[in-house]
């Protein structure tokens, strides 16, 4: 099924071919997981986002319009799952703080899974800078840098105009480059 387009696989799945859905999972589970990992900044939840994204895709397959934008569509679903996950984590943290049962700090650097830690210091610094970007900039930069998505695809994923995407990406890149300059001076 490797040569079939995403739209064709979705159509086959809608017609009852479960193998077509497996092929879509094979194609997109790593991009979805990596996007979630970057968006959640190494906090727990990327595994759940992976599963919930594909479950949501299976449930909403009937609503998908086959216009060659499956990647943008599934990344939008993944993004919504990430936002739900972040909101739930915030609620949990606030509840723990209110009841005096837990710390007010977000998940610490040490809590990240080992695979998060980069091979060299520069890459690790870059991961930290990406994680510190405002949410929208981070999403746009990650989709561009990791998934090689076009501005149009990112606009479709984030639900914003293309010019907004360009602004988000260039502001994000400027912040990252400035951060790396500072890191190298230290």
């Amino acid at each position, binding site marked *: 099924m490797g040569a079939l387009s995403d739209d064709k696989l979705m159509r086959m799945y809608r017609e009852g071919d479960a193998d077509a859905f497996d092929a879509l999972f094979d194609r997109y589970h*790593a991009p979805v997981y990596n996007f979630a990992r970057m968006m959640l900044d190494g906090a727990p939840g990327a*595994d759940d986002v992976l599963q919930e994204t594909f479950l949501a895709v299976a449930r909403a397959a009937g609503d998908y319009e086959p216009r060659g934008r499956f990647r943008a569509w599934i990344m939008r679903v993944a993004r919504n799952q990430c936002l739900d996950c972040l909101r739930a984590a915030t609620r949990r943290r606030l509840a723990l703080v209110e009841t005096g049962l837990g710390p007010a700090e977000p998940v610490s650097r040490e809590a990240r899974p080992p695979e998060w830690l980069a091979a060299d210091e520069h890459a690790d610094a870059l991961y930290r800078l990406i994680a510190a970007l405002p949410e929208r900039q981070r999403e746009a930069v990650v989709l561009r840098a990791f998934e090689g998505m076009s501005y149009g695809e990112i606009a479709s994923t984030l639900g914003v105009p293309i010019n907004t995407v360009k602004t988000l990406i260039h502001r994000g890149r400027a912040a990252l480059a400035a951060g790396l300059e500072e890191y190298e001076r230290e």
Partner: protein
Amino acid sequence: MECEVSYEELSRFASGELDEERAWQVQDHLRSCERCRRHEAALRALDGRLRQLRRIEPPAGAVLEARRTLSRQVRGGGPEVMTLGEVAEFLRVPQDALAEVMEELPAFELGGYVRVRRARLVEWIEQRERAYVRARAESEVAQILAGVN
């Protein structure tokens, strides 16, 4: 003194996204501004570093768990080949209602048993959906024309 070229604009320049005139102006500015040259070099280095960031393979356990859950969800929807009773249940109509459409139902016969493949049934439903929309549109046009006359 504040520089006339922002870091963000340098990013657009480094990505080749400025219009020609502005790109020339920035190019010209770079000759005389060491700070902007440093920023531009940092932006180009950033592109290289972003390319080197590794995409990791999701943990095998997470992938396996997701596959298991999805398989239950995706394949647990019923058999690939259905009896007429299952077809009626799938369509949420009484089994008697199938008698009316028996001739066009994409069924096959094996040893006296009539069966329907789920995938063919879904295609058939889509054909009927299209026919229904067409018939409704034609009916509306006919009503409009009747009103005109």
